[in-house]
């Protein structure tokens, strides 16, 4: 479960490392292009997080080399540049995802899970926490063996919560994750509330305990305790 983080901003890199380690990932860090380059083939990484703006080289070059080296590694570009051309270029060079700074750590974790599922496990993985089972391939959710009929957004929300289990995830990060540019603040917290209410009701109706906790109006937490 190794993850390589190539990011020149120490403070941000440390945050990412702390959060990912809480999630149980083991992290290798590189603060510049050359260290990153040296570390590329030292391990069989599950996923690489690569910043494009590095002081001593172009992150895109690193993405290209990483892709040539290992093709079952997930590669996520982390960049402050949000231009469409940059994204397209990054994805063309072999990146699996493109995350624009500043991002939510919870979103980063969800993206890592999703990329890893696609590249490593080829989507066949079934996520199981408590009595809830989710099969990302078919976008289906079960409580015990009973299928629960969820809407697209409810499903996405559940997957996001499960990917960040035992972590508090903020309402902003949920809004950004579910709606991206379409959310933009306007009443999106009302939606989250509505979707969450429906999700809880559906899961409880299927016989699941309520795993979703409200955390002081800051956000939510999916946890077995």
């Amino acid at each position, binding site marked *: 479960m190794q993850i390589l983080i190539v990011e020149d*901003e120490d*403070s*941000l890199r440390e*945050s*990412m490392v*702390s*959060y990912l380690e*809480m999630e149980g990932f083991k992290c290798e860090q590189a603060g510049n292009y050359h260290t990153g380059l040296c570390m590329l083939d030292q391990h069989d990484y599950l996923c690489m997080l690569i910043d494009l*703006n590095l002081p001593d080289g172009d992150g895109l070059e690193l993405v290209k080399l990483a892709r040539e080296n290992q093709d079952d590694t997930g590669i996520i570009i982390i960049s*402050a*540049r*949000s*231009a*469409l*051309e940059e994204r397209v270029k990054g994805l063309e060079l072999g990146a699996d995802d493109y995350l*624009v*700074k*500043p*991002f*939510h*750590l*919870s979103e980063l974790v969800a993206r890592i899970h999703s990329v890893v599922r696609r590249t490593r496990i080829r989507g066949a993985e079934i996520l199981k926490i408590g009595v809830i089972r989710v099969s990302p391939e078919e976008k289906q959710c079960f409580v015990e063996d009973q299928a629960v009929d969820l809407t697209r*957004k409810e499903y996405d929300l559940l997957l996001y919560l499960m990917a960040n289990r035992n*972590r*508090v995830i*903020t309402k*902003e*990060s949920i809004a950004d994750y579910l*709606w991206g*540019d*379409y959310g*933009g*603040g*306007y*009443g999106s917290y*009302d*939606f989250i509330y*509505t979707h969450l209410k429906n999700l809880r009701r559906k899961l409880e109706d299927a016989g699941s305990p309520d795993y979703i906790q409200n*955390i*002081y*109006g*800051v*956000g939510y937490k999916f946890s077995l305790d």
Partner: protein
Amino acid sequence: MKLLTKTTLYIATLSLFLFFLMGIIFFQVLKNLSQADLNRELSGLKEVVESHLTQDPQHLPIRIVGIDSLSVQKVDAGHRQEEVFGDTLMLDAASNQFRTYRYLMYQSARGQGPLLVKIYKSTAPTDQLVERVTLMMTIMVICFLAGVFLLNRTVFANLWKDFFKALEKLKEFDTAKEPVVLGEQDIEEFAELKDVLEKMTRQLSRDYRELKEFTDHTTHELQTPLAVIKSKTELLIQSENMGPGEMKLIQAINASTNQISRLNSTLTLITRIENRQFTGVREIDLARLLDKHIEMLQELVELRGIELKKTYSGVANKIQMDPGLADILVTNLLKNAIVHNREGGSIAVETGPDRLIIRNDGAPLPFAEEDLFRRFIRDHGKGKGLGLGLSLVKKICESYGFLLEYAYKKEQHVFTLVYSF
């Protein structure tokens, strides 16, 4: 008016006026000259008549060479007549027409008694001369004008060739591309113009590049510390020993950070649009674009109990623009119609062959209509909007030359986007 037309017009007006004036003066001078000539001739003839009278006071010859007509009258001894020249009309017996004559009238003392002599000389030959000369003049003037016209056309085209070339190059000039380079100029003023233009476009290109770099750097420099704050607050939230009070503080920091980050990226976007950094123009199907975004916003529509009606004109509506900007344009217009609606209100999305019309219910604007598209103008009662959505839309429209109009009719906000003319 074109430069050539204008110059030609000036030259034509001025030369016509000048030639007209000169024509009048020339005609007068010519006439005076011919009159003086006739007077001189008449004076000469007077000497001839006098010598005839001296030789034979009784009889004058019937014809004296050079005199067209002669009248001699006896006058009373006390009569005094000064010598005068004059013009008169006389009936010509042969052609039965009046002709003009110049005459000299004087009193002769050569005869037995005082005689009043009038010597007439026809002006026909001199008049004819004046006429001919005037005609010649007119023909010459016309030829001259035609010549000036043609010369102007050819010389003009030749002289201004470099100017028009430079103009073409300037029209094609794009701040994003290379500065304009013009060829060598042999006309001093054009050489100066070339220097100024080259210097200006170089400056423009450099400013543009620097601004672009600055924008790029600013986003990067701002997004990174924001990313740090965001990640740190998120880590802080995970901390086990946080009470509700601390959580609220962190939440407030988090929310504000998100807002700054959104503000920053939107302002960057506006700058990028103003700098025309979006150049990937493609043909976009308006109906498909609208459907895509309406579906994405469906939830928002349903949550507010809004009824959304689509009316697409049968013709395929194609817009030529950057796909990313097209997305931003349509999302912001639709989002605006949803957010500034009333609960259970309605939205009508309509396309015509050249336009997109979005109508939505809602209270009148709480600010002046002309402020609608300005930055940071927003309805403060309505949540956390940045007040940048519509100014973004306006900027996109301006950059493509689309027309965007707003009106408030029948308790509805109406946005009309005309994208082809």
